[in-house]
């Protein structure tokens, strides 16, 4: 009988959250933001890549997945690094408004892709 491979998915997810929390803590404590953002993006890349390995074992073509992952995370990282050079002084009320709009948008975004339960 074939043995089941252990499922490390939850462990990798926990490691991703820990690494993002560490990077955010590093920024708040005055660390170099460019390096820490790159570290967070790398953690995302590794998390998704290791998560796909189990699927690749059962026939999933990995090259398309890896290329798309590298393109999306790389583009995001590039824009984020460029964004660090933008200095836009905003009043606190403006920041709150922008935050509110962003949150609202994210909530709507998440709801619009909810699969109805049968």
């Amino acid at each position: 009988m074939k043995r089941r491979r252990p499922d490390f998915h939850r462990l990798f997810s926990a490691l991703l959250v820990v690494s993002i929390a560490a990077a955010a803590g590093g920024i708040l404590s005055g660390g170099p933001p460019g390096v820490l953002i790159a570290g967070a993006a790398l953690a995302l890349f590794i998390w998704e890549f290791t998560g796909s390995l189990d699927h690749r074992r059962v026939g999933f073509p990995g090259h398309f997945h890896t290329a798309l992952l590298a393109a999306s995370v790389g583009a995001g990282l590039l824009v984020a690094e460029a964004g660090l050079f933008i200095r836009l002084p905003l009043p606190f009320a403006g920041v709150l408004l922008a935050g509110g709009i962003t949150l609202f948008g994210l909530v709507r975004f998440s709801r619009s892709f909810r699969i109805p339960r049968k």
Partner: protein
Amino acid sequence: MNEKLRLVLLIVFGLLLAALLSRNAALAWMALPFLFFLGAGLLTSPGEVRLRASRLVSHVRCEAGTPITMTVTIKNDGPTLACLRIDEMVWPNEQVIDGDVNRTVRLPEGETTEMRYTFHAPRGECRWTMARITVSDPFRLFEKKMELAAEAEVRVLPDSHVVQQLRLRPRQTLRAPGPNLSRLAGSGVDFYGVRQYHAGDSLRWVHWRLSARHPRQFFSKEFEREEMADVGLILDGSAAGNLACGKEELFEYSVQAAAALSRTALRMGNRLSLLVLGEHVTRVFPGTGKRQLVRILDALAGCQPGEKASLNMLRYLPVRLFPSHSLLIIISPLRASDIPVISRLRASGYQVLLVSPDPVRFASREPHSPLACRAALVERQALLWRVREIGARAIDWPVDQPLMNAAGAFIHEQGERR
């Protein structure tokens, strides 16, 4: 929303919230790779999905232990799917010996994918009605789960071997040619007696030696007519008598015995019927030949022990199922409550042969008190003695040995009694 999408959204929300509270733009920028990751997933997520599924099994009917190969085929009639996952339903006690029961592929438009695996299934009926499919983007963030109709059925028959040594010796026979000695003179092989020659007797039947001793008289040999007998098989599937020891169940041995005896009785040329008192009452009406064996094995493949089943149900014995004076073979672990039922069957004129898988030796595979085992063995011997006292024959079958050995010991015992 699946767990993965929830985690990524949680990280994005967390980073944006932290950026707002700390008024640090770098934290907000950190969320950007995650947002791009979500966006890429969203752009490549499946829109319209048009799939067809089908199944193909290597065996529709087979014996337990035979490797069965299942092929699941999915055809994509819609646009290209970036990620398609097939999750196969595995039956309890099904052992996958080769291949995978799930598969993830990229399926271009108009193409087909196959998933093949080989498994061993225990006795029973395995029926598949659908294939579980999940289509998603390559990152498996936005998933659509669906069940496509794909039917297949496998009937795994019980192990059955012919019990060579068993002679059924029915007292009543049918007026049709068969294997059992009928105690009537006629055409046969076994010598029966000698009588006066009648006109029309074949010269081959003339007893020349006796005729030589008696001048002017001729004698003919008579042979014992060989006829078919009616045999009824009753399988006791009461859950109370079905002991379990690890993964093994005593009922499985009863089913194996029923299958082996069916094969033996039909191969001899008898007419056989079956009654299973289990989760459902299953009946197979009397018949002969290979077709009847197929019917009986199919019925045995699907039977399961039942909570309410017991031999007491025989009080409502259907008349058509077991013709009067037929030989009834009861396969039961035997409990004290079964004795009156066997007694009643004997009183009704049936000839009864009890084949009893030994529950005490079966249960003693697990560590029990030796004193308790001895007490149970004594009780069982007393029960078997009572069965023999009421005129039924009994085969005590220790299930760790082949049924053939128990049948051999039974024949030996019968010979000594005569």
